């Protein structure tokens, strides 16, 4: 049984805003990325999971319980990191941690201390005096102080410096190893790529694609760029090659070509006939894939196609 289940949720705010027929499932121990630009509907979807809003249509479940009707009950096992950092007024970090511990009715503070140490957080300060990074860390500490099995993270690393971002990614990977189920909403490709098993891409309130991260990493389709030492070599290669050359740049003596792993040997055989300046692989990143949906306004099938052939 999936830990998190979203079934055909629609919340229409009018003027094309909202989310429409959003569905996905997250299995136990899975890290699920939720990728999309601001305003695409990531936070709206998470609000449903947290029971903050009621769907117009559809329903969502966490651990088999309805997230609206059993909103309070399911929170025992959820760690939620809000996207916006708004803390109660006039509290120090320690007071806020104590407040949250009382609200969660937990007395064991060992996990809290562990997290404080991990993220190097000084909690004696007034919250409003804290830097954005410290506030983010404080939110992290209070979200996971009760060691929940389901983590819902809304843009968790914004405001953290690169070192802390890296540490946070490491933290997520550690949690994943412990078998926690994680929903990670983000618009930062690197952290999604680094942590997620599956990635949903949301655009204008609609989930346009759910891809396996492994599919990206273990893609047997490769793209290479080759530069020849002279125009003669360039010409010679083009004359003899059995590959389809997607892009030709005679001025620079460069070609780009697509091939699968099985054809790799043949490429090197062909290249051994000519003089080569360099050969480099053109990596297909999540970003490339993502951009297909956003910048180029392409359809879902176009994006799939590019993933297939790695054409860039």
């Amino acid at each position: 049984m999936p830990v998190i289940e979203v079934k055909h949720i629609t919340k229409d705010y009018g003027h094309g805003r909202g989310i429409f027929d959003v569905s996905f499932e997250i299995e136990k121990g899975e890290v699920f990325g939720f990728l999309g630009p601001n305003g695409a509907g990531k936070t709206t979807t998470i609000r449903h999971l947290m029971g903050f809003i009621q769907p117009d249509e559809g329903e969502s479940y966490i651990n088999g319980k309805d997230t609206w009707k059993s909103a309070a009950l399911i929170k025992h096992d959820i760690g939620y990191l809000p996207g916006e950092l708004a803390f109660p007024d006039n509290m120090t970090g320690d007071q806020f941690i104590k407040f949250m511990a009382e609200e969660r009715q937990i007395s064991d503070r060992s996990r809290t201390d562990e997290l404080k140490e991990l993220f190097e957080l000084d909690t004696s300060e007034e919250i409003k005096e804290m830097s954005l990074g410290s506030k983010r860390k404080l939110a992290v500490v209070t979200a996971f102080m009760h060691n929940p099995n389901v983590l819902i993270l809304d843009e968790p690393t914004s405001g953290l410096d690169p070192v802390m971002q890296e540490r946070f990614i490491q933290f997520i990977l550690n949690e994943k190893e412990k078998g926690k189920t994680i929903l990670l909403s983000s618009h930062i490709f690197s952290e999604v790529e680094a942590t997620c098993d599956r990635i949903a891409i949301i655009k204008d309130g609609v989930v346009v694609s759910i891809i396996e991260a492994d599919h990206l990493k273990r893609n047997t389709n490769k793209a290479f760029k080759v530069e020849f030492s002279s125009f003669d070599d360039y010409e010679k290669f083009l004359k003899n090659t059995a590959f389809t050359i997607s892009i030709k740049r005679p001025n620079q003596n460069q070609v780009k070509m697509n091939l699968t792993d099985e054809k790799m040997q043949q490429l090197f055989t062909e290249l051994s006939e000519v003089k080569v300046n360099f050969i480099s692989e053109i990596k297909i990143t999540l970003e490339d894939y993502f951009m297909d949906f956003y910048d180029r306004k392409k359809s879902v099938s176009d994006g799939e196609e590019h993933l297939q052939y790695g054409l860039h």
Partner: protein
Amino acid sequence: MISKPIFKQSLQSNWKLWLIITIVASTILSGFIISYDAAGHASIAEAAEGTAFSNILSSLTSLLGSLENFYKLIAVILGIVYVVFTANNLVVNEVDSGSMAYTLSTPIKRSSVIFTKSLYLILSVVLMYIVISIAGLAASQFTFNNVTGYAITDDVSAAAETLNHEEDYLSERLYLIQEDENAMRVAAIARDMDTEAYEIYLEDVIRERSYEETAEIITDERWDIYEDDEDMGDEDIEITAEELMEDPEMILNSNDALAAGARIYGVSINDYREIITDEIENMDTEETTKENEEAQETEENSESDAVEESTTLQRQLTEDNAELLLQTVIVSSATALNISSDQISDNLTLLKDPEALALSTQTTGLNEEQIRSMANHAMVSSARSVDKALEFDSEKYLWLSLGLLLLILAMSSISFFASTLFNRTGMALAIGGGVPFAFFLVTMIQQLMDSADGLEYLTITTLFDTDAILSGGEFGWGFVVLGSIAVVLYTASNILFTKKDLPL
């Protein structure tokens, strides 16, 4: 149902405003009470006596009546400031800023979040107005000693010094002043009277107090007897001092009442029984003379609080001409003594000056005895007005305090409802603060303008009818409506918050 951490957090982030408003309101109320000018208010009451306003004014010319502006305006606006900002802080501010998300990411139910917050607002308002009321009680007690006992007037203070007693001890044993010539003299001077008038005054006070205390005891006894009797309404069971004065026989039937009356007079129970029996006899003869008089004259004076001595001048002094005659006497005396009549009015003992008396008898045709008696009467009634103005009616004070509390609770329910209805602080402030403030403005205009027809229907402060409370009118329904507004809106807020979408 109640979340302790949320209650604690509400307290932590709102106690400062609570404290400031409570201190300010308590200080203002205490200030009003401490600076209350009993003599000034008493003179207004006297001036209005007999006019159409006397009924209205009699309610205003008491200590509590002088607090109307506090109860109608000052306490209301301070309460509004508190409830509007606190209601906003408690709910919509947390929703708008997003900090509510932290609380709702814990296993605390929404219903207990909102219930705890409404409970905090209600309890803090209740506590605020309890503190303010106690501050008012304390101020009145320390300034006039009129809450737990009889007000300490200037004569009691002066006599206490002479007799070397505590003031409050003496204020309950006025007969001690009567027994000491020296004390009588200083006490009389302290109240701008001569000993002759003061003696009448003191007797009058003691007599009235004895009736008040005995009436109270008899009422208590009747409660025990008739409590379960369905034929007897509350009004029937209760015996007022006035009823008892008309029929003092009831006192003779109660040992406790006799003991209480005797204590006031400082005499034995037997002696007191004697006093009451005499009074009953007097009343009988008075009635027969009255009947005779009525047979002779068509118009007759039946002024109830007239001092006994005045019966002799009733032949020539009637209610209609008494005021006129007094004015004539004052003017004559002023001429005789060559001072202004205002000075005479301030010190009526001057009427008894031989020169003044001579001229007064000439101009009015009354004899000296009658003028002396008239002067005494005037002095005693003016002193009694001051005493009346200094009385602290605990029951009315309780109703005023309760009415104010209900009004502020109703205001708070409006703000709280707006705070749960809206997701944006600005909107919640506009409605949740604007509506109560509009009510306040209407009330202020009403207070400033004498005739503001129809305005009373535009504000819920009308439901807190201070005039009715002070004059003993009907005010209970207003309280019920105010309470209902609070109950309905708080309930609606609680339901609404558990069902609404939160933009967190």
